[in-house]
């Protein structure tokens, strides 16, 4: 139904989004650089989580290949960053991940459930170990320097990629393509029997989601200045988007956004304020959310709003 229904709340939310966007754009003008850098990191996590949700949300294929796509972008940036202008480098990072995702997709998307999860995880591990082997035995140097970019530029580029990813996620969700993805997630065999080319739909979506991860990797590499396979293909980056999306709730588009933002901010606060108990606190919060909020933070807000509405009706 989300294809046609136009609710009267749309202009209101559109306005709110516009104001948030203006705030984010003007932010570097009046906040200290530390905050801009923190926000860059948060936006990185949010963008990767939103990209992850584009594919894994509706289809329910849990992909653990995020690190592979992100790392692809990082390495592209390190390899061609010195010889090409920045926008082209970022585009190339996205495209290389896109191509990798098409290959991986055609190979693995026939797998379901556990097999798909393990295979996607193996892909990023394979690339990481292959690169390590290549650099130690073939080139003799592990890791490389990346061209530095001013931190406000990094911030604006990551903001731009985030807006594009969010827009793509929104458009896919409400298009007929989104309905096909949802059908595949619900009952794949039935979906193919009503004329949906499941392999094509899944591969294309997987590649779109990888594109944004690759572009994010390409710009983040310039922030880190030095990268090696262990940094670029950090397996943690495969798990974090899944946790962040579940934390926020995958049912709504804004679930992953809030989930990743709060998650990343929490991590930052806890590491700086409680360096010794950080992991303990973080783990406890995560367990509480997953146990008691099966639909994530957004699910909690919705439940509360529905409860509020009911009370209003009873009073009137």
């Amino acid at each position, binding site marked *: *139904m989300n*294809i*046609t229904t136009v609710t009267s709340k749309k202009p209101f939310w559109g306005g709110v989004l516009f104001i948030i966007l203006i705030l984010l754009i003007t932010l570097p003008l009046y906040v200290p650089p530390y905050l801009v850098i923190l926000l860059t990191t948060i936006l990185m996590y949010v963008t990767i989580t939103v990209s992850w949700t584009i594919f894994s949300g509706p289809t329910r294929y849990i992909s653990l290949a995020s690190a592979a796509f992100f790392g692809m972008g990082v390495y592209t940036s390190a390899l061609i960053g010195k010889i090409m202008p920045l926008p082209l480098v970022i585009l190339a990072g996205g495209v290389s991940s896109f191509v990798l995702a098409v290959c991986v997709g055609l190979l693995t998307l026939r797998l379901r459930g556990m097999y798909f999860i393990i295979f996607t995880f193996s892909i990023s591990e394979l690339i990481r170990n292959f690169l390590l082997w290549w650099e130690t035995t073939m080139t003799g140097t592990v890791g490389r320097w990346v061209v530095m970019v001013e931190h406000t530029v990094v911030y604006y580029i990551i903001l731009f990629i985030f807006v594009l990813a969010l827009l793509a996620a929104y458009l896919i969700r409400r298009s*007929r393509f989104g*309905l*096909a993805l*949802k*059908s595949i997630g*619900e*009952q794949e*065999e*039935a*979906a*193919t*029997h*009503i*004329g*949906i*080319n*499941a392999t094509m739909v899944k591969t294309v979506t997987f590649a779109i989601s990888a594109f944004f991860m690759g572009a994010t990797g390409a710009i983040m590499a310039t922030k880190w200045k030095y990268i090696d396979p262990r940094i670029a293909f950090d397996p943690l980056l495969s798990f974090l988007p899944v946790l962040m999306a579940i934390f926020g709730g995958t049912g709504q588009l804004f679930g992953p956004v809030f989930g990743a933002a709060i998650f990343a901010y929490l991590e930052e606060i806890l590491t700086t304020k409680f360096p010794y108990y950080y992991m303990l606190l973080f783990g406890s919060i995560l367990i509480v959310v997953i146990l008691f909020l099966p639909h994530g933070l957004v699910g909690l807000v919705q439940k509360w709003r529905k409860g509020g509405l009911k009370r209003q009706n009873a009073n009137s």
Partner: protein
Amino acid sequence: MQILEGKNVTKYFGGLAAVHEVNFDIHQGEVVGLIGPNGAGKTTLFNLISGSLPTTGGEIRYKGKKITGLKPHQICKRGVARTFQSAKLFAGMSVFENALAASLFGTKRAISVPDAEREAAELLDFVELSTERERLARDLAIANRKRLEVARALATKPDLMMFDEVMAGLNPVEVAQAMELLTRIRKKGITIFMIEHVMKAIMNVCDRIIVLHHGSKIAEGTPEEIATSRTVIEVYLGE
């Protein structure tokens, strides 16, 4: 005119011949029943026709063109629709979305969203599910699930429909309603190929019946011929 024909259709699962050199013809406008004891290979034969499973040997032709080797979505777009033995609905989507998805993707020619929406609404009306259109498919009772599966199959605008035990689990009143629905589908000019265990339905609705046993075709004929056939009675009741 033949709409569907199978020549020596064979499927092996390892060493087991689930379907063994089965020949069949289905004519335009006919209602053909497919019966046989459990494990006879009926659903496997349906899976071979719809492309769910690749054949081991033989050839299936639809409207004179070979469809063996095609993917399920391609076969669907040529005009073959099916339902599943255990209704495979998009459980977390609304009744309307279930039908809409089929209208949007089921045909070769592209269709606009408003047209698809109108079509989906009409078909829900046709199977008498209009009142349930906003409910989630998972919340439907069994009879309505079956109706929705039929509507979803119809939304792909088929010329041939395959029903896999569409009446299983229905009570006598619901069986009567299902039979009436089949008659109305037939009046649309759609050819029907159906697996059924409810004998009353098979005998009343079908023009012709094919009997499978251990993967082979053992009999074929009108309902009267099948009901009196010695081989068929032996297979069902033993000697």
